[in-house]
């Protein structure tokens, strides 16, 4: 107990020191016990890759990242991923996270399900979905992204689903017990290029999920294997995950607006003192919305009319975007 409290205190210091202006995204990565060297190596590699991508590539402040490893060997691992430490870290974070913060919790390791209840294997006692349910109650106003990248993790959806919560699991039930490849691709979505499908220079949680889902399918197909893992995403609180979420309907809308990089494009791109940019931003936003709205009407329009209007809007958007880039001093 004493040691756990110590961890929480350390984290508290780190959180307090982070400037308020960017203290919006927190990442807690929990590496599970591997059992075999190859699994231990893979879990640690995925965890460290994600931690590095979040910190170095996406700009999440180091003080807002915690990595609990099954066998920590120094940074970036913060400490051992015992159940007590996981509980301490999340409890401490719940007490300090801003009301509008985004909290990402990512589990990488083996899982199982007993009587339909999912659990995650840690050094010492396992941690269950019910344990996490109690811990997440500590984040009543924050956006929580809970990602269980373990086998037999499907049960986490039902246990944790709720308002302002996005739950991702590597499998759709507790019966999919085989080793999963979803974690490799989910981490890759943030660490490499290729997942930013809408080209807004950020990878949303939905984009990462879809990237990993498709790559998993491709991996199985190219190996001539039947797909034995079906990842789920739930972000509408209905306790039912979707294997193919869609931002336009059902699960996916919230996840499409959540980013590990916590800064919206407009705010980041604003050049202080250049008032001429404001109307350009507004126009760009208007045109983007118009394109989005046009797409919703596509099925009701003739293809010629749709193409014509699409091209008109996209041309206007391209001109505005180019003007913005020129004023911002970026490449034309």
């Amino acid at each position, binding site marked *: 107990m004493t040691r756990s409290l110590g961890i929480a205190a350390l984290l508290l210091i780190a959180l307090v020191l982070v400037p308020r202006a960017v203290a919006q995204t927190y990442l807690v990565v929990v590496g599970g016990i591997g059992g075999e060297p190859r699994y231990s190596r893979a879990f640690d590699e995925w965890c460290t890759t994600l931690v590095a991508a979040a910190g170095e590539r996406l700009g999440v402040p180091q003080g807002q990242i915690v990595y609990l490893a099954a066998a920590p060997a120094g940074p970036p691992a913060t400490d051992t991923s015992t159940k007590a430490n996981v509980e301490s870290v999340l409890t401490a974070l719940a007490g300090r996270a801003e009301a509008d913060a985004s909290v990402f919790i990512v589990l990488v390791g083996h899982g199982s399900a007993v009587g339909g209840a999912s659990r995650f294997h840690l050094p010492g006692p396992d941690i269950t979905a019910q344990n996490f349910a109690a811990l997440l109650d500590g984040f009543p106003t924050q956006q929580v992204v809970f990602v269980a990248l373990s086998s037999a993790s499907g049960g986490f959806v039902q246990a944790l689903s709720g308002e302002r919560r996005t739950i991702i699991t590597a499998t759709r039930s507790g019966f999919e017990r085989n080793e999963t490849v979803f974690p490799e691709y989910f981490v890759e979505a943030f660490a490499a290029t290729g*997942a930013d499908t809408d*080209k807004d220079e950020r990878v949303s949680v939905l984009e990462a999920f879809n990237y990993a889902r498709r790559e998993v399918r491709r991996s199985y197909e190219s190996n001539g294997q039947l797909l034995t893992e079906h990842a789920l995403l739930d972000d509408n609180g209905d306790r039912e995950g979707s294997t193919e979420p869609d931002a336009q309907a059902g699960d996916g809308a919230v996840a499409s607006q959540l980013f590990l990089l916590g800064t919206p494009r407009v705010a980041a791109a604003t050049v202080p003192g250049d008032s001429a940019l404001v109307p350009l931003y507004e126009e760009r936003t208007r045109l983007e919305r118009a394109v989005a709205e046009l797409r919703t009407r596509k099925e009701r329009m003739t293809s010629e009319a749709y193409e014509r209007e699409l091209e008109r809007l996209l041309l206007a958007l391209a001109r505005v975007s180019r003007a913005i880039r020129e004023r911002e001093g970026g490449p*034309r």
Partner: protein
Amino acid sequence: MKTTRARSTLALACIAALTAMVAQPAGAQNDLAAARAAYLAGRYDDAIARFSRLAERQPEAAVSVRGLVQTLTEVGRYDRATRVARRFVEQNPTSSELWNALGETLVLQGRREDAEAAFAKAVAGGASDSLTARLNLAVLRYRQGDVARALRQFDSFIDVYNRSTELTSTQLTAVATAVRYLGVADWQLYEDALRAYDEASAADRDNFDAQLLVGDLFLEKYEGTEARQTFDAILARNPQHPRALLGLARTRRFAGGSEAMALVERSLEVNPSLVPARVFRASLLIEVDAYDEAAQEIDRALAVDPTSLEALAVLGAIEFLRGDAEGFWETRRRALALNPRFAEFYNTLAELSARNRLYHEAVRLASQAVGMDSTSWRGFGLLGINQLRIGSMRDGRANLETAFRGNPYDAWTKNTLDLLDTLEQYEERATRRFRLVIDAKEADLLSLYAGELAEDAYERLAARYDYSPPAPVRIEIYPHHADFSVRTVGLVGLGALGVSFGPVVAMDSPSARPAGSFHWGSTLWHEIAHTFHLGMSNHKVPRWFTEGLAVFEERRARTGWGDNVTPGFLVAYRDGRLLPVSELNNGFMRPAYPEQLGFSYYEASLVCELIERDHGPDALRRMLLAYRDGQSTDQVFRSVIATRLDDFDDHFDRYLRERFGDAIAALRSAASVDEHGTASRPNIARGASGNPDDYVAQLSMGRSLLDQGRASEAVPFLERAKELFPEYAGPAAPYWLLAAAYRTLGNTQRAVSELRTLTEINAGHYEAHLALAELLEAAGDHRGAAGVLDRAQYVYPLDMGVHRRLAALVAETGDWGLAIRERRAVLALGPVDQADAWYQLARAYLGGGDRAGARRAVLRALEIAPGFADAQDLLLELHDVPKNE
């Protein structure tokens, strides 16, 4: 059965039999049991001797005489069996116990009227086997075409079953058989028949007849595994049982095994008068175009039973396939005189025609079968299957549905209907002469390559053969091998990669097998070549010749395509395990060992190569035309290349020795060579140093050293192995190992050289292509790397990374047509980053000067990602720059 019934402990028939037994002295009972045991174990001579002694001692004891008749019948001594039975009924005028047995021996000899009279006496006399006699009477009527009356009589057996408290095993067998006949009108009765057969077997485990009939029923419904288990069970107790051996032979043919002929010949050794075995053997001979021998077999069958409808049907097929119209019509007249509703005459013709690739004829013949008998569900099935083979998809489906309604137990029909449901998910893409039918998930990708390749094949083959098959040719590409297998043979488990029915080609998609495991482009070319050969010869080309020619065409299509020589092939040749040309069809139809099929493909292709070398390119074309005109292979060789087949065998043998003599000599230590060209050797190092001219020794040593990381030491051994057998470029050939060694040693130039030669001989080596492209690209030869990756797409087109690499390389070299194809391939593979894929395609279109295509593609990119800066710039570029720039 329709209703259940109560059982009692004893049946009347059993009581009668028991009484007969009890009436005999104890010694006689023991003798009878011994005779019976000998019969069941297949010690037929012993059984005959024992039964004969018993019959002599007690000529009035029906059970002994019946045993003797049964045994004599089993081994085909029908005359003697008839005499024994007739003597009994003459000497025992008050007993009706042997009339049925007598009738059965008469039926086997085609003496129907006498048999009918005998069965009638058994029934009238209330013999213990009178129920079997009733069945036999009904069967006779059925086989005479008096179907309605026969079905009424069969129907009465249901009442027998339902009203009896107990039936003997033999009686249950009779009931089951009657119900099986009724299944033609009510398919659910097949289940009842099966159940009754099971009851019969349970009641008497020595009742082999019931088990045989179950096996036949399974086979009739394409349940090969169950059928085999049934026949195996009988043969485990009686390895000599001629009808079980025949049943097993049928299951082996059904499964595509090579043992069918040997099994049926074993059957005929035991019973040389077994007409169904003669008929089956004849049908096997037809499959290898041995019509003369098949006709002789049918003559033997008809000598035993001149009324055998099945023998007449096969005889009709032989005459039909030979083009003997007069003989055919006479045989047809004979068969239909015996049974005017014998639709199986046409069904047999249709089936054997289809087995000889005469699919249009099969459709016509099956149509006549169903016209003759509207309940010939087999006829509807054959009609539907063969309509699908010639591309009549709608009619084929309709007839298969009719067949399924009448007999849903037919696995071929059911599987094919399921497949047709699957085909609804496929998309059709049309080219000038082809209609590509591809799973929707793969259609965008594969049509990029298959359409162009098919058209190229058509152009070149049409020019070579001076023949153009009717268009469109339908090409179906299956991502699941099981579906392809069902399309071809109605069941899963076929080992082939593709098939051509002439107007329809079906094949595995590259996604149906592990990456790089087969050259799908070469396979497609091969099947299209068959379409030409079948069309030119009116589907009369023998299998060996069209396969050889198709492989030969593969080799001429592109560098490195088609089969090439392997150590296994040469060792088989050296050991005399290849077939002479005159028997080469057997290598395809009934391979004697697993590798013989593959060896036969290559051997046949060498035959074609030799003929073209010696007689010019037109000789092969003229041979196809000679086959079209009905000539046999022997006649074709004599008329086209003025060579007797035997002489050609000798000539071909010399050709092989001249061409591969050095390699064969280098393989002298290869007692048994596996598919990788390796052999186990107790002492590799000693073998290599002492045998510098031994390919296997040198290769083994080189590989061993390479595996140990001693690349520079491995090189001399591998170079020597290559020198000894330079034609071989299989998966573990010296080229591949040398490339690895040279890469390890940093000698890129030599590695490139090895890989280049390897892929020029064996274009199916996917890994070698990727490795070669990588080395060429690194060396700055981007055009060369692009060429290699382009060729790799015909082995495995499903790797998105390879498409991206190729697209980038050809964009550098300005081959925008290829760049567009490759960017479309990337999109077809469903990349996560769709916007970027569309943008890259737009760039390729623009590079190729297709501004409209570029505009469409970039709009797709921006529709997905409106804020995509590069795509925005391209859109502005397309819009703002005047079109004439």
